[in-house]
């Protein structure tokens, strides 16, 4: 009897790969799926479940299902990928300086003068210059970010 193709193993592996490659270009773009990467974790969970199912079939009914060689290989790759993702998101991304001396609420914001995108120097004092209406709170939001890689 011809053994049938064990699609679960491949589908599971593809789901895990999709979870790995989709974070940066897709789900990291939206705070709701970035701050806690639940979509990617769901993809991983579904992928690993399918892989497990496929492996179970391959080993319990080797006469009917293929996948006793490729199943473990793809499973190990998938687990390594998931571990890498979790390490990056839940460990590496949290290795930030404590910033204990950062200005606190109520303190004076340190001044600076830096060039903008046209090379024109901009000082904090320029940014704080009175806005159009006194009824508005006014002020500046400074967003420090890691740069455009």
């Amino acid at each position, binding site marked *: 009897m011809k053994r049938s193709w064990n699609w679960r193993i491949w589908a599971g592996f593809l789901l895990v790969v999709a979870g790995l490659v989709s974070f940066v270009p897709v789900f990291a773009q939206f705070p709701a799926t970035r701050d806690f990467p639940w979509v990617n974790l769901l993809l991983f969970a579904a992928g690993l479940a399918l892989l497990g199912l496929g492996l179970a079939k391959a080993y319990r009914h080797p006469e009917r299902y293929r996948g006793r060689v490729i199943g473990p290989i793809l499973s190990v790759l998938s687990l390594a990928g998931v571990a890498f993702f979790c390490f990056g998101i839940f460990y590496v991304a949290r290795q930030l300086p404590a910033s204990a001396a950062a200005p606190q609420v109520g303190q004076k914001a340190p001044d600076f003068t830096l060039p903008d995108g046209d090379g024109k120097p901009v000082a904090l004092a320029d*940014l704080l210059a009175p806005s159009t209406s006194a009824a508005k709170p006014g002020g500046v939001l400074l967003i*420090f970010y890691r740069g455009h890689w």
Partner: protein
Amino acid sequence: MRSFQKRLSDFDARGVRVVAISNDPVDVNRDHRQQMGFSFPILSDKKGEAARRYDVLHAAGGPAGEDIARPAEFLVDSAGTVRWVNLTKSAVVRATPEDVLRAIDHGRDAARK
């Protein structure tokens, strides 16, 4: 920062200017702004002077081991006083424009009382 661009009119309505700062050179910031359609300025803190003054310098935190700024947001009022700070614990978790708008409105309500 894309989300801040989308809500920029809400910041304008409150008279609050949005300014981004990174260690990228001026030309990278110019291209980045054009490419992303950002209408707020991006300042080039090449030597990390501002990042040091705000203690948000992440030494050797860049992809090639260069000094970069950790993600952080500071709301400064028109008198130059810090009114709200967000120092995230994770580089993938940042403040949303809604967080900041709430802080601005909360501060204004408190000032009226």
